[in-house]
């Protein structure tokens, strides 16, 4: 543990709340000021994040840095313990980047029914919850941050979402609540049965071996449901397509890029290290469900008629690869999973941005009504093509380095799994998962072909505005706008950079992963 600049992580996490406090005093009519304060806050937060990047000691990425621990809830031995290592760092920074970019995008894309002030406040609260989850080193603190994101996202979907928003938001909320209630009981049971000195991760990891085998299996099951709902893993995924489809663009991006990662991060940080024995027994189950998710998600994609819903199902498939990597219990697999989390955040986040922009221009996401985007809006069309390629795992782009090592690692799972006679099962999973990448190529290329190739749909050819209040005499169909460029360019660059030079992220994560799982 490196206990220098202990204030840094708290500042980065809670700064958005300071922005919220300021925004509370801005009159609702003054939307421009509200947006400015929101964006300045998010930018300041990201600056703190960049400063954190420069101060991080990459030579000791396996250690928790900027570590600080304080008394918090003494009667139950919960502490305010935070720290950052190579596993947390990429996700922590990613959450800050995504929030800022989403806010920039929102400058001229506030969804119906408006109210920029509330919208920006919710995004800032979300940011605190997300960043806090990635730095928490105490189970109770983790739980609190994990839950902080729940209400803002519920309101984001429910107030600013599409037609079916109320149903989708309720489904999202109840699923997540159900998962976290069981998770909380599992956390408490872990603390009590392990007789740990406190809820701090370090204490629990050390004491985890005290838990009896049967109890450990049950506790792991509780955590599994909590995290699996969030990921989401098959068969707990059914909230996701609805939530994603109905959420406003900004909500979909944050959901895909960060919120889903809270679940996978929980597996890597909490469930596996604290209950290694139970993890060994559960790993094959996780692996099988992960691969079912890959295939099911891909088949689901092929059946979709709505572009956004298709991207949502592709999330199920991609998170399947991440979970497959985790289920191998090997450093390689978990490295791949960690990389896959970030890559999926960048790529699927971009895809949702594009879907939002397409919807704004055509007022529909029905694939069969879209065509010829490359002619009508060449830049948007090319960006969609680029992201589709990245998403299907084209080598040289970020998506590849999440999927490919995950598949490889499943061929040679951890020795304990081999010893338990699961090698054959995992080899089978490898083959099915590899087939999944073919399906991924199929649905993404098919999507691209249907929407971007060919001639523009005559329906939109001479579009001079719909009668729905958006069009004021000129066409809604225009190429990528300035705020879109600002919001998207960093993501596009990151996809290329991490694709060409994945070592940039692997070298940060690997020491920490090896430290946790290399034993």
């Amino acid at each position, binding site marked *: 543990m490196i206990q220098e600049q202990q204030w840094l992580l708290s500042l980065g996490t809670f700064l958005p709340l300071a922005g919220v406090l300021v925004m509370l005093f801005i009159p*609702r009519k003054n939307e421009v000021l509200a947006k400015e304060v929101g964006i300045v806050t998010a930018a300041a937060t990201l600056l703190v994040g960049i400063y954190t990047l420069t101060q991080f000691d990459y030579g000791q990425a396996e250690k928790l840095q900027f570590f600080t621990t304080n008394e*918090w*809830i003494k009667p*139950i031995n919960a502490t305010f313990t935070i720290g950052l290592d190579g596993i947390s760092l990429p996700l922590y920074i990613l959450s800050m980047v995504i929030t800022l970019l989403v806010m920039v995008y929102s400058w001229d894309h506030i969804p119906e029914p408006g109210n920029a002030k509330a919208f920006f406040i919710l995004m800032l609260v979300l940011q605190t919850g997300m960043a806090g989850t990635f730095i928490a080193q105490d189970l109770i603190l983790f739980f*609190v941050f994990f839950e902080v994101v729940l209400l803002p996202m519920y309101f984001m979907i*429910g107030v600013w979402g599409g037609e079916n928003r*109320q149903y989708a938001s309720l489904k999202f*909320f109840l699923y997540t609540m159900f998962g976290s209630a069981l998770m909380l009981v599992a956390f*408490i049971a872990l603390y*009590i049965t392990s007789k740990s000195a406190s809820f701090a991760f370090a204490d629990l990891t050390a004491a985890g071996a005290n838990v009896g085998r049967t109890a450990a299996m049950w506790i792991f099951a509780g955590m599994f449901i909590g995290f699996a709902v969030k990921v989401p893993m098959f068969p707990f995924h059914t909230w996701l397509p609805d939530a994603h489809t109905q959420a406003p663009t900004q909500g979909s991006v944050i959901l895909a890029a960060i919120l889903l990662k809270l679940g996978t991060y929980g597996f890597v940080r909490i469930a596996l290290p604290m209950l290694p024995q139970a993890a060994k027994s559960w790993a094959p189950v996780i692996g099988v469900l992960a691969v079912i998710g890959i295939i099911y998600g891909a088949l689901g994609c092929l059946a979709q008629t709505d572009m956004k819903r298709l991207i949502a199902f592709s999330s199920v498939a991609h998170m399947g690869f991440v979970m497959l990597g985790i289920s191998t219990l090997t450093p390689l697999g978990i490295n791949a999973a960690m990389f896959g989390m970030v890559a999926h955040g960048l790529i699927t986040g971009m895809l949702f941005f594009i879907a939002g922009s397409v919807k704004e221009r055509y007022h529909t996401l029905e694939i069969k009504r879209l065509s010829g985007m490359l002619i009508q809006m060449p830049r948007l069309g090319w960006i969609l093509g680029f992201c589709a390629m990245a998403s299907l795992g084209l080598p040289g782009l970020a998506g590849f380095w999440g999927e490919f090592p995950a598949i490889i690692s499943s061929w040679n799972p951890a020795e304990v799994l081999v010893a338990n006679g699961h090698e054959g099962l995992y080899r089978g999973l490898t083959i099915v998962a590899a087939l999944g990448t073919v399906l991924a190529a199929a649905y993404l290329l098919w999507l691209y072909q249907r929407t971007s190739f060919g001639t523009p749909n005559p329906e939109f050819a001479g579009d001079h505005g719909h009668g729905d209040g958006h069009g004021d005499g000129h066409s809604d169909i225009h190429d990528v706008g300035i705020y879109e460029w600002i919001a998207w360019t960093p993501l596009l660059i990151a996809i290329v950079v991490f694709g060409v030079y994945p070592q940039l992220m692997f070298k940060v994560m690997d020491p920490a992963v090896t430290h946790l799982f290399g034993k």
Partner: protein
Amino acid sequence: MLASLLAFARPDVDYHALAPEIVLAAGLCLVLLLDLFVPDHRRWITGTVAGFVLLGAFIPVATLAVIGGDVRSLFDGRYVIDEFALALKGLFLLAGYVVVLLSSNEMEEGGYHQGEYYVLLLTSVLGMVMMASSRDLISVFVALEFLSIPAYMMAAWRKRDTKSNEAGVKYYLLGVFASAVLLYGMSLLFGLAKSTKLSEIGAAIGDGSKAAAVLGIVFVIVGFAFKVSAVPFHTWAPDTYQGAPTPVTAFLSVASKAAGFTGLVAMVYLAFPMAKDVYQPFMWVLAALTMTVGNLLALKQTNIVRMLAYSSVSQGGFILMPLAVAGTGDAAGPALKAVVVYLLIYAATNLGAFAVIIAVSRTTRSGEISSWGGLFNYAPGLAVMMTIFLASLAGIPPLGGWYAKFGAFRAVVDAGSGWGYTIAVIGAINAVVATAYYITVMREMWMKPAPDGRVSAVKVPSPVVVAIALCGIGTLLMGVLPGSVARFGDLADLTHAFGG
């Protein structure tokens, strides 16, 4: 005879320890006198004075808590001021103050008898404050009647409204019935122990294997189960809550309920602590039934006060839950702590919710949940506060309610028994079901249009604003820094007193 009278020695009275009760008693006489001499149009003074009396009574509670130190035990250990008592006295006094804030406009505009109302309110609070310290069958019973009888009248305060009359009568009839049951149980306990002091009863009853002891324990629990509206003894609650004036409902669902739990806890921990084979299964069934049935009925409600009434029944189940394992293993300490902390957090949250209801229904003139549509658009502040209170009731971090639920779960898991784990899972499922009806209101406020196209802001009277702010700060603070309340109800302090 005369000699024995003359030999009476005045017991030592610790006036500092009794100061809250003395201030309240003097204060309620003062309000009564004021009511006689103040002209009609200035009757609001009685409310203001009542508020100051409650705050004044809070001062000695605070000083006693700050001084800390030894447990102050009066009258041969039958009236005890320890941290448990102080925490609950603080709760009753502050809850009473918030209710005064909520009542002032309602009473003023309704043209009700203000003076009498505040006198009754103060009397009821005095009974609660006494309950927190009572460690004797007689003082427990006297305190219970003291707090209940004024509440019967307050429930029927809108006397020209048949619903309010129904509320009062129902509450009264079932209340006195419960008292009778309780008294019968107490008489059995007294018969076995030949003492009214709780700790002596506890020693005499032992593990409660005698049939009379079992009957006594069950009757006592049933008596209190009426007070805390545990299923199946809850039937009065929804009608009474809906019919009573809303500030009174807030008072009943928070303070009166907490007082019931205070008495129940004292009985469980002192009068029959070793009879766990008798009370634990009974509490287990009560808790499981209460949280489940309360929830299922709350799901169907369309009136917000009725919904909160059933929600409060269900919350009561969560407070009972730790008591179902209070005798198993090491769970006694966490269970007691869980109950006290739950009561404190629930009080702030539920009072806040009722405060917002009062503020909103002044404008909408309706109790239907559907009338809350579009609140976020025309009164964003109230909508956000209501969201905070509802989310806290649902147990979503970082709002107080999560820690209350956490403590309850921790206690039952700590017991390490199959019964404990089972009720933990039942509780977890119920916690999720409960969110469904809290979220209905949130959805109405945030996502539905206003039913009558209302756009103008809601005017909230300043006392109600203060009440909402107090409850909101409390709810947030206890969620973010639960350590601030969690130290109350430490068993170390309690067993010291309880064992005495």
